[in-house]
C-alpha cells in the first residue's frame, strides 16, 4: 500500500483516522466492501497541491490528518451539555442528534407521516431496513470539485448519519432538524445526509455542525446528497459552527429532476479551514436550483467554497449567490463554474459572489467561471469585492450610532439579502441570531 506523503506521513496508530476503516459492527457486506474500496481509493489518490486548479488559493498545508482520531466515549456530563445546547428551531417535524458520529437522541416523526411512508432513520438502520433504496443512492454522486480523495475517506470511515426519504406527493411542512457534534481533542466526524424525495414531495431540512469545546482541534469530513425527484421541492439549510481549530471538508451534491426545485443555504461561521464543495446537477427540463451561502470570517479563518452548476438538460435554471464578510486576517476563496452541456439549450444561469472586506489584512479570492457548450442560453456571473461605503457609515454616525454598531448594521444588511431569498422566516431568524452571536463574540 502506497502511503501518501503529506497525509500519511507517519505510521498510524490504532484509533487514528489514518488507520483505515474499523472492522464493522453490524454493517451489511456490500457496505463493508464499499468501505474497503473507499479506503483503497483514499490511499492511492494524490493529496491536493496548491498548483491544482481546483485547489488554487487554498491553504492545502492545513490538510494534515495525522493528529485526528475516531471519536471516543461520551461521558454523561458532556452528553447532557450537548443535549442542552442542541437548540435550533422551536418547531420541528423530527430531530436527530449525533455526537462523535453516535446517535444520542431522536425525536421521531408523527405517526401520520410514518404511515404515509416517510423514512427518517440513522444510516446504520436504513442500510438494513431499506437496503435496496438506500444502496441505490448512497455515495452515488461523483466528487468532481477537487475533494475526490476526501470523499473516498468519507466512504471508508462513515459510520452513521441520516437517511431521509419522502414518498410521492408527501409534503412535510415543519423543518426536520439534524445536529452533528464534535467532542474531545483531535476528534473526527464524518457526517452524512442522504435525502431522497419522490415525485411532488416537499421537505425542508436544517442541519447544524457544532463543537462542544470551542478551542479543541478536530476534523470533519462530510458528504451530503440531495435528490429532488420530479416536481419535488427541497430546501436544505446548514449552519456550520465548528470550533475555531477544526479543519472541515464538506462535499454536497444536489440532483434536480424535471420541474423540481432545490434550494440550499449554507452559513459558514466556524472552523480554522473550512472547504465547502457544492455540485448542482440539473438533469430534467424545468428544474431549478438555488445555491446560497454566507461566510462570516474573522481571525485567521479560511473559507474555501467551490461550486459547479451543471446544466445537463435544456430549460433549466440555476442561481448562485454567495456573500462573504471578512475581518482581521481572514481569507475566502470562491471557485465557481457554470457549465452548460451541449444541447442544454434555454439554460438560464446566474452566479454572483460578493466580498465585503472589513480589515486591511483580509483577502478575498474570486474565480467565477463559465463553460458554455450550447447556444441559446442566458448566463451571467458577477464578482465584486469592496468595503463599507463611507457615506453610509457617515449617515449612521450622524444619527448617533457609534461606528462599531453602525458597521455591524451595515454588514447585517449586506448579508440579509441572502437570508431573504430563503423565504422561511423562522429559519432566517435563527440564522440571524447565529450571525449576531458571532459578531458579539468578536
Amino acid at each position, binding site marked *: 500500500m502506497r502511503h501518501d506523503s503529506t497525509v500519511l506521513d507517519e505510521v498510524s496508530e490504532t484509533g487514528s483516522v489514518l488507520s483505515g476503516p474499523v472492522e464493522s459492527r453490524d454493517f451489511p457486506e456490500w457496505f463493508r466492501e464499499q468501505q474497503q474500496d473507499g479506503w483503497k481509493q483514499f490511499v492511492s489518490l494524490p493529496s491536493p497541491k496548491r498548483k491544482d486548479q481546483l485547489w488554487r488559493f487554498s491553504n492545502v498545508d492545513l490538510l494534515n490528518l495525522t493528529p485526528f482520531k475516531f471519536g471516543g466515549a461520551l461521558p454523561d456530563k458532556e452528553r447532557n451539555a450537548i443535549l442542552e445546547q442542541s437548540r435550533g428551531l422551536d418547531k420541528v417535524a423530527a430531530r436527530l442528534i449525533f455526537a462523535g458520529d453516535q446517535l444520542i437522541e431522536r425525536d421521531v416523526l408523527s405517526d401520520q407521516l410514518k404511515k404515509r411512508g416517510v423514512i427518517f432513520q440513522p444510516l446504520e438502520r436504513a442500510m438494513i431496513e431499506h437496503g435496496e433504496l438506500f444502496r441505490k443512492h448512497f455515495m452515488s454522486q461523483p466528487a468532481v470539485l477537487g475533494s475526490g480523495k476526501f470523499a473516498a475517506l468519507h466512504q471508508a470511515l462513515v459510520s452513521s448519519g441520516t437517511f431521509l426519504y419522502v414518498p410521492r406527493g408527501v409534503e412535510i411542512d415543519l423543518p426536520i432538524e439534524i445536529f452533528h457534534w464534535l467532542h474531545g481533542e483531535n476528534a473526527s466526524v464524518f457526517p452524512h445526509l442522504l435525502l431522497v424525495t419522490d415525485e411532488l414531495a416537499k421537505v425542508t431540512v436544517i442541519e447544524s455542525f457544532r463543537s462542544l469545546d470551542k478551542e479543541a482541534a478536530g476534523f470533519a469530513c462530510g458528504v451530503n446528497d440531495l435528490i429532488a425527484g420530479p416536481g419535488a421541492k427541497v430546501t436544505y439549510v446548514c449552519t456550520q459552527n465548528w470550533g475555531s481549530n477544526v479543519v472541515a471538508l464538506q462535499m454536497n451534491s444536489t440532483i434536480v429532476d424535471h420541474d423540481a426545485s432545490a434550494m440550499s443555504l449554507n452559513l459558514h461561521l466556524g472552523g480554522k479551514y473550512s472547504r465547502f464543495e457544492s455540485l448542482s446537477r440539473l438533469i430534467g427540463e424545468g428544474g431549478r436550483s438555488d445555491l446560497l451561502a454566507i461566510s462570516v470570517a474573522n481571525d485567521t479563518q479560511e473559507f474555501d467554497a467551490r461550486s459547479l452548476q451543471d446544466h445537463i438538460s435544456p430549460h433549466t435554471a440555476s442561481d448562485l449567490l454567495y456573500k462573504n464578510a471578512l475581518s482581521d486576517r481572514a481569507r475566502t476563496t470562491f471557485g465557481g463554474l457554470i457549465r452548460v452541456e451541449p444541447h442544454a439549450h434555454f439554460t438560464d444561469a446566474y452566479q454572483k459572489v460578493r466580498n465585503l*472586506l472589513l480589515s486591511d489584512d483580509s483577502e478575498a479570492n474570486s474565480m467565477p467561471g463559465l463553460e458554455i457548450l450550447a447556444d441559446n442560453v442566458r448566463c451571467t456571473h458577477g464578482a465584486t469585492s469592496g468595503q463599507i461605503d463611507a457615506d453610509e457609515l457617515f449617515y449612521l454616525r450622524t444619527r448617533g450610532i457609534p461606528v462599531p454598531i453602525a458597521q455591524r448594521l451595515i454588514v447585517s444588511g449586506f448579508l440579509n439579502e441572502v437570508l431573504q431569498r430563503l423565504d422561511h422566516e423562522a429559519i432566517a431568524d435563527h440564522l440571524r441570531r447565529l450571525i449576531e452571536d458571532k459578531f458579539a463574540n468578536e
Partner: protein
Amino acid sequence: MKTETSAVDINRSIGDFAYPEVHVRDAGAGLSEKTIHYISDVKEDPDWVREFRLRGLKTFLEKPLPTHWASKDLEAIDFDKIRYYLSPGTEAKRTWEEVPEDIKRTFERLGIPEQERKFLAGVEAQFDSEAVYSNIKKAVGEQGVIFVGSTEGLKKYPEIFRKWFGKVIPIADNKFSALNSAVFSGGSFIYVPPGVKVKHPLQAYFRINAENFGQFERTLIIADEGSEVTYMEGCTAPKFNTTTLHSAVVELVALKGAKIQYITVQNWSANVFNLVTKRGLAQENAEVKWIDCNIGSRLTMKYPSVIMKGRKARGEVLSIALANDGQHQDTGAKMIHAADETTSNIISKSISIGKGRATYRGLVHVPKHLKNCKNNTECDALLINATSRTDTYPAITVRGTGNAVQHEASVSQVSAEQIFYMQQRGLTEAQAMSLSVNGFVNDLVRQFPMEYSVELKRLIELEMEGSVG
C-alpha cells in the same frame, strides 16, 4: 435561429499566397545549443545576448507545457520540426527601391504601400524574421524617436535597450517567453524621448512565410517621461499545410506620465499556434493600453498584462476575439496593482462561430495596504451556432479595505427577433447576422483607430459569411 448549418471555410484569399523561398541563412530544423550559437553568429550578437539566449534555451527545456490549465492542443506542436531562424540575408532596407521585387509584390497584394503610407508615420515590415523595410517619416526621427528593428536596437542603443530588455517579462515567466528569449529575431525597438508626443501611430506588419517556420519577434517600447506613442501591429499570413508557431514577446515601459497604446489585429491562418507574452509596466501617472483583436490562428494564448507600479497608474485591455471552426481563442488580461490609486479596466468581447471556442482567462490582483485601487472587468460572449463554445475563467484577489473590484460576464446569442426584424426589412439572414455581430462589438471597435476599425469590420463580415443561412 438556424443552428445546424456549419460555418463556411474562411475566405483567406487576401493573404493566401506565397512566393518561392530564397533564404540565404537557415539554421535548420530543431533546437539545441548549436542553433543558438548559429543564430548568435549570424546576427553577430554581443556576448551578453548570446548568454541571454542560452539561459532562455535552458529554461525552455526545463519548463513543462502548461497543459494542467491550458489546452492539450499544445501537445501537437513538434518542436523538433520547427525551423527557428531564417533570414533573407539582407540588411534592413531604408528606401522602397532597395526592397526585393517579390517582397514588394507581397506587400502590393496586402495593399500596404498606398494605404499605409498615407496614414502612418513609419513602417516597419517584417518579412519572415528580419526587417526588410523600415521607414520613419523625417519628422518623427527629428523628434528623437528611435524606431528600429530589435537587432539594430540592441547594437546601436545598448545603454537604453539593456536597461529594460527582459525586465518586464523575465526569461522564466513562462515556457514560451523562454523560447522567445532563446531564439528571438526581428520585432521593433522604440524609444520616445521625454515629452514627445508621436502624432501618428507607428506600425509594423508581420508575416510568416517559410513553411514550418516559427516567428519569434521581440518588441521593446520605452516611452520616457510625459511622452505618448501608439504602436500598431497587424498580422496576415499565407496558408500552409503544416503547423506553424508564432511566439512573440512584447515589453512596454511607460515612465512617469507617459502613455503607450499598443494595437494588434491578429489574423494568422488557421494552422498557426500563436503563443504570445505581452506585458506593460506603468510608472506614476502613466497609462498602458492594449487593444487586442484576435481573428485568426488555430490556438491563440495571449493575456496582455499591465503592472501598475506607480501611484495613479492606469492599465486597460480592450479585446475582441472571434473563434471559427477549428479555432480556439484563449485570451484575456492580467492587471497587477502595485501602487495606491491605480485603476484598471478590462473589456473583452468574444464571438464563437461554428465549432469555434473562445475562452477568457483573467487575473486581477490587488495586494493589501493599497488604497483606492479600482478594477472593472466586463466579459461578454456571443454564441452563433449550437456547436459553438465559450468559457470564462477569471481569478480575482483583493486584500484590504481601500479597494473596489467588480467583474461581470454574460453569455448570449443573437436574438431571433432581431434577425426576423431585419429580414422583414429586406436583409438576408446572413447580412442580418453580420449586422448584429458588428453591433455587439461596435462600442469596442469605435475605440480603435479609424483605419483599423474599417479593416476589422471587414474581417468580421468575412468570417461571418456562411455561418448562418
